[in-house]
């Protein structure tokens, strides 16, 4: 190197190559992630006996929701039938059956929570898949040998980046894994 400009040029070329390697590595990881999602889909379909792979993951999960709803309704049919008979019994007998039938009704609320959890998972998976596709698209348009000056501009404009809008829809998060107790909710409610 004869002077400072030569030194800077060497440093600059080195930085470009390092950046290119990092980007290439990222692309490889994204492609692996995309493949992982596709394999997971196939495995889920195989478990359900969908050998042809024609049913989507969405359809499979919706079938789970429907199956649990059908089972819950069958339980409710039986308990409601029991209840009509219980209502004809003397009060002391009715009291004895009240608690168990109430417990059955309470337990059946699982189906609503299950359905909401599954829908939440479906939304997250769909979102992840969409993001991976978008990132791969952006990278494949912009990375083709990151030579000096050819790295180019990212085509992802502000328009393609989702804008988070705070509105009532943003409050629909579904059941939480660590659900606060009713007592906690009551305490919060009283303080607002």
């Amino acid at each position: 190197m004869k002077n400072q400009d030569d030194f800077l040029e060497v440093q600059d070329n080195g930085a470009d190559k390092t950046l290119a390697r990092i980007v290439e590595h990222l692309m490889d990881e994204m492609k692996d992630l995309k493949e992982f999602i596709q394999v997971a889909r196939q495995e889920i379909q195989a478990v359900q006996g969908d050998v042809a792979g024609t049913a989507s993951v969405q359809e499979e999960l919706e079938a789970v929701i429907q199956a649990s709803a059908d089972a819950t309704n069958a339980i409710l049919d039986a308990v409601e039938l029991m209840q009509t008979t219980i209502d004809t019994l003397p009060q002391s007998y009715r009291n004895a059956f009240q608690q168990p039938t109430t417990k059955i009704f309470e337990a059946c609320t699982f189906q609503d929570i299950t359905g909401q959890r599954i829908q939440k998972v479906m939304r997250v998976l769909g979102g992840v898949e969409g993001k991976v596709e978008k990132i791969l698209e952006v990278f494949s348009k912009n990375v083709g040998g990151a030579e000096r000056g050819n790295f180019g501009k990212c085509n992802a404009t502000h328009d393609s980046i989702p804008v988070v809008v705070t509105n009532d829809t943003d409050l629909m998060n579904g059941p939480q894994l660590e659900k606060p107790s009713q007592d906690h909710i009551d305490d919060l409610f009283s303080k607002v």
Partner: protein
Amino acid sequence: MSKILQTKILIVDDYKTMLRIISNLLHQLGFEDIHEATDGGMALEMMGRMDFGLILSDWNMEPMSGLELLKKVRAHDKFKHIPFIMITAESKTENVVAAKQAGVNNYIVKPFNAVTLKAKLSSVFGEF
């Protein structure tokens, strides 16, 4: 029969199974006049035809969420005084705050039990 138990109640939930469960629990508590709606639009239409003494609503519904239904109820001269209890799986702080600020009378988190349901109804009607 106690006047409280004669209250005409409207349950709003897009899950028909949940409507059935809540209806059965209300029956066990002694309520008989129970009506069901599967979305906010249907609920508002029914409220236009009948005088309800209580609304129990889910939050997570489309196209009108339970919060939107609550806001419409509170904005309507005819309906704004009807007690409104949210029964929902939404349990984050911001949900509770938003519902309270919108005028909800009480808030039940799913899954819930009959004791909680009765306690929240009592908070609106008094002990029964």
